[in-house]
């Protein structure tokens, strides 16, 4: 689907994804708000520009592969997948409910299009590295790319650095990691809980090509992934600086929204902001007062 949509159209996609995240979380009554909202631009870029995918053929042999390592942000992936046509949008409201294919944390076997099962943090990069190793050394498949989205708090996990060392050793150049650098985790700011900086220096020391972008700027994200794919002697990591809760002002920057869902009043307020550009525009059918 590369290059079909303009940046403005991609931004519109990100906004739809945000609306769906709010509606899903409200219906579910639990879940994580801040991370998924902050990642909406990155997921719009991945699903509608960056990745080579066929939503009507999720197992398509030539597809690019996305591992979601921080599984708690999966509402953003479900919303992007529904927007891309993997399944009907109505199903989004089944999130976290008994019998749903949309589990609280992603389960590969339940929903075609998910590449793995995740939730416990720290092992997505290893899996992505295993897949990328296969493409580079075993399959001679140079045209496919493996993307992995990680949280920043997740980088506390030792498993991440085992994988970072592994991918550096084997120069897995078809591996593109994206870190959602939103500076929050459940107990507070990442730098208070367990300092991550110098983050760039750490990844460079492990043999990675490091890019830093505004993760809420779709064009920058797309440019960074293009650069990452052009680096052929190292794995690449994109430190994507995002605003947690992006798009909903009362959630932005507030770590307390990391692990909670909006109630119906908050959801109404959030949707109102997302659908009307914070009340600056009104139009028929916006579905809000």
């Amino acid at each position, binding site marked *: 689907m590369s290059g079909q949509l303009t940046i403005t159209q991609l931004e519109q996609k990100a906004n739809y994804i945000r609306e769906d995240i709010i509606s899903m979380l409200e219906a579910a009554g639990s879940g994580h708000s801040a991370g998924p909202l902050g990642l909406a631009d990155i997921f719009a870029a991945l699903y509608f520009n960056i990745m080579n995918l066929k939503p009507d053929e999720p197992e398509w042999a030539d597809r690019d*592969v996305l*591992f979601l390592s921080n599984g708690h942000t999966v509402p953003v992936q479900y919303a992007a997948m529904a927007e891309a046509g993997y399944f009907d949008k109505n199903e989004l409201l089944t999130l976290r409910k008994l019998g749903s294919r949309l589990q609280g944390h992603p*389960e*590969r*076997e339940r929903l075609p299009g998910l*590449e*793995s*099962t*995740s*939730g*416990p943090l*720290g*092992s997505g990069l*290893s*899996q*992505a*590295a*295993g*897949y*990328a*190793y*296969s*493409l580079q*050394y*075993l*399959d001679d498949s140079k045209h496919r790319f493996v993307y992995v989205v990680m949280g920043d708090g997740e980088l506390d996990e*030792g*498993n991440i650095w*085992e*994988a970072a*060392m*592994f991918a550096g*050793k084997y120069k897995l150049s078809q591996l593109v990691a994206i870190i959602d650098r939103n500076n929050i985790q459940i107990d507070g700011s990442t730098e208070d809980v367990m300092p991550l900086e110098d983050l760039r220096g750490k990844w460079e020391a492990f043999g990675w090509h490091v890019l830093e972008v505004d993760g809420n700027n779709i064009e920058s994200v797309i440019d960074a992934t293009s650069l990452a794919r052009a680096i052929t002697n190292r794995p690449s990591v994109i430190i994507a600086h995002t605003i947690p809760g992006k798009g909903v002002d009362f959630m932005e920057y507030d770590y307390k929204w990391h692990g909670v869902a909006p109630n119906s009043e908050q959801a109404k307020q959030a949707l109102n902001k997302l659908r009307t550009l914070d009340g600056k525009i009104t139009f028929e059918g916006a579905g809000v007062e």
Partner: protein
Amino acid sequence: MNYPLHPDILTDQVKLDPIRAGFGRGLKAAGATNDKIVALCADLTESTQIHLFRDEFPDRFIQVGIAEQNLVAVASGLAHAGKIPFASSYAAFNPGRNWEQIKTTIAINNQPVKIIGSHAGVSVGPDGATHQMLEDIALMRVLPNMVVIAPGDSVEAEKATRAIAENGHPTYLRLAREKSPVFSVEQSPFEIGQAYVLREGHDVSLLGTGAMSYQLLKAAQILSQNGIDAEVIHVPTIKPLDEETILASARRTGRVVTAEEAQIKGGFGGAVAELLSEKLPTPLKRIGINDRYGESGAPNELLEYFGLTGDKMASVITEFVKNTPQYHRDY
């Protein structure tokens, strides 16, 4: 009963070979017929015998260093890319160190990764408690989707390795370090999920897994000299358990003994206790390690110390048989 046993097993000529060596040979053989097989190791390539595969298929060998969490999660990614990964280290670390990664990225994810836990049991010897993995059977058999196999000798380990390469499921293969008696022969059957009657008897069913099945054969010989006619069943697959063979034997003999070089709580003995108590309550004696850790010592010394030799088992079983009425015999 059609399980051919090695003719020398109860003589001084019994052949000794490490179970892990059979794995090494089996993996090399499997690798020759299936190019999807890849082998990963965490800095223990020769110890786990995976060097046989590495030397033959260097392009399909992946060294991950001392990083067992990465070992299995990379294997999961390789499996998703269509490979059949064998991820090997010592059982103390794999699954001892990386159980959650195994659960999430392999078991829930249902990827056909083969987890190879070598050097299991007290017979690791002088390394002591930290390296004597006794909890692995319990850890792995509670995972839905996971197959758990503890081959009895090196010949069976070779067959088991080739079988799990093709079974399409997440699988744990438990191996031991020391040379142990080879009781099976090339023609002896091995199928995943199948238990084998090695010796028929009326008075008690002796169920063994791993190398303990050989010790039970020795015990049965001693018991027969004392007038106790024991049936010996080798149970290499702990999950899925061959309920039919075990229940049929328990129904005939009315007394059951299990033997394993692992914790009986949650281990193989635990699995048999669950089966019998739900489907055919039968007096049960579990032989193995009972709620303690191992310690340093020579391998044979430790087997003796923990009561895991045929001699020691024979006395325990004699007491058990004497003091336990036989249930539900179908005369």
